[in-house]
């Protein structure tokens, strides 16, 4: 059973001065419940790929199927977190988390509110429920963004470089927290990151993309049981996987980004 199935997907941006072949052809299937990490050089089409799967942008070729349906509009059953937290300045934390419940009528307010509270607790930001985003640090804000993405119990979670703007220590902390939130939820997760360590630590599988137009360069299973501890990163097998990914970038002469 596949949550996402892409077949020969391509994307060309028709820009003024010349067309940009941004992506593909790329074929990829994500089994339900899997956490897939995508790494690749900057500008190889990772964000484009995410937008296409989410139905926020059209592919110019190939087929995109999510939950066994062709995608041609924003898909409803997904929570998205971007690099910028995109919290609403004019709402406090709890009301920010409630936003998706207000926008889709399927969710009952009362239930959503209780769930929002529970999510904030699980993410360790419950004490800030009445605070405004500008009162919080970057890491705290991103936790709120994750709570917002998870509010309506989406079956899929898309994360586009969610921790890239955070310092290394906060980033490690966020990796552990994200893993905690995912635990036992069976959420199919697409994680785009430029940190090889983060990709391997959080995922069941890593896909390495080539430089633009992005295609699949390598597809690696990550077999470690969960919950994982940060010390796993010193495990020889972990180091091997990380090295295998790094070699791709060294060979291509590009840095991961």
């Amino acid at each position, binding site marked *: 059973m596949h949550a996402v199935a892409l077949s020969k997907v391509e994307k060309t941006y028709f820009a003024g001065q010349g067309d940009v072949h941004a992506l593909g052809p790329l074929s990829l299937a994500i089994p339900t419940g899997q956490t897939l990490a995508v790494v690749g050089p900057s500008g190889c089409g990772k964000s484009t790929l995410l937008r296409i799967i989410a139905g926020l942008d059209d592919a110019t070729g190939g087929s995109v199927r999510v939950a066994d349906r062709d995608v041609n509009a924003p898909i409803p059953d997904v929570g998205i977190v971007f690099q910028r937290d995109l919290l609403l300045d004019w709402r406090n934390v709890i009301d920010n988390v409630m936003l*998706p419940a207000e926008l889709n009528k399927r969710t009952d307010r009362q239930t959503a509110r209780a769930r929002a509270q529970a999510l904030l607790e699980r993410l360790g930001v419950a004490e800030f429920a009445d605070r405004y985003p500008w009162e919080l640090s970057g890491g705290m804000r991103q936790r709120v963004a994750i709570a917002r993405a998870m509010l309506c119990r989406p079956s899929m979670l898309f994360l586009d470089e969610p921790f890239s703007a955070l310092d290394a220590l906060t980033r490690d902390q966020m990796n552990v927290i994200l893993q905690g939130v995912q635990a036992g939820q069976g959420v199919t997760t697409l994680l785009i990151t430029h940190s090889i360590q983060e990709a391997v630590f959080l995922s069941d599988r890593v896909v390495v993309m080539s430089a633009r137009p992005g295609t699949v360069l390598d597809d690696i299973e990550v077999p470690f049981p969960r919950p994982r501890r940060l010390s796993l990163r010193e495990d020889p097998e972990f180091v091997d996987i990380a090295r295998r990914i790094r070699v791709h970038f060294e060979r291509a002469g590009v840095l991961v980004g």
Partner: protein
Amino acid sequence: MSADVTQARPLAATAKAAARRRARPGGAVALPLISGIGGLIAWELAVRAMELPPYLLPAPTLVAQVMVEYWGMLMRQLGFTAFAAASGFLIALVLGVVAGAAITASRLVDRMVYPWLVISHAIPKVVVAPLFIVWIGFGLTSEIIFTVVFTFFPIVVNTVTGLKSADLDLLTLVRSMGASPLQSLWKIRIPAALPSIFAGIKISATLAPVGAVIGEFVASNQGLGHMLLQATGSLETPLAFAAVFVISVFGIAIWYLAELVERLSIPWHASQRGTILGA
């Protein structure tokens, strides 16, 4: 627009400036007060020493005396001016926000109307004030409509800027959450536009008394503008000074009122930011 400037200001610089203000408590109030009182005394002494006639330059004490004497009349005239300014401003606010919304909502309206709005803004409106008598006639209606014209542009321009300022990624995000265009207007675009709209409101609110007074210069037989014209015409300069003083205080009061409404309406905006919590 000015709100953006506030936002763009590095936090560290703002904090430093605040610290400097705190370091000299009262300095921000006491120093201008000292120079102000000093200026008044110098003015008083100069008038007395040179024995200037009051119709040329009245001493501050004489102006104060006249103000007390004519207090009732000044306040009644202020009432007329304030009414015209407030009505004109409120009409301009509604029209300006609606026009701004229309310009943002429709590419066609934007392309066809907005450039002309901006160009016509360059016409000094004082120049066209007399035309209003020709078109609408002498009286309050003319005065109010002139105030509308006088205060309309900052609101339109800032509404358009504000409504266009919403974060594109944020709009994409709410689209993925299933937001309808109306929902994203109501829940994202409008709140995001408020700081900019308030910047326009502050400019227009301070322009409104000016517009009303100019309107009274040309098209009215009441209000402080009319009174000012009459007083100078009959060389009652101390009374003219009193009228100018009342107009000025009124203008300043309006500005503070707009500022207060802004602070109450958008407490989340850059103005009130403080300490950051957590790691």
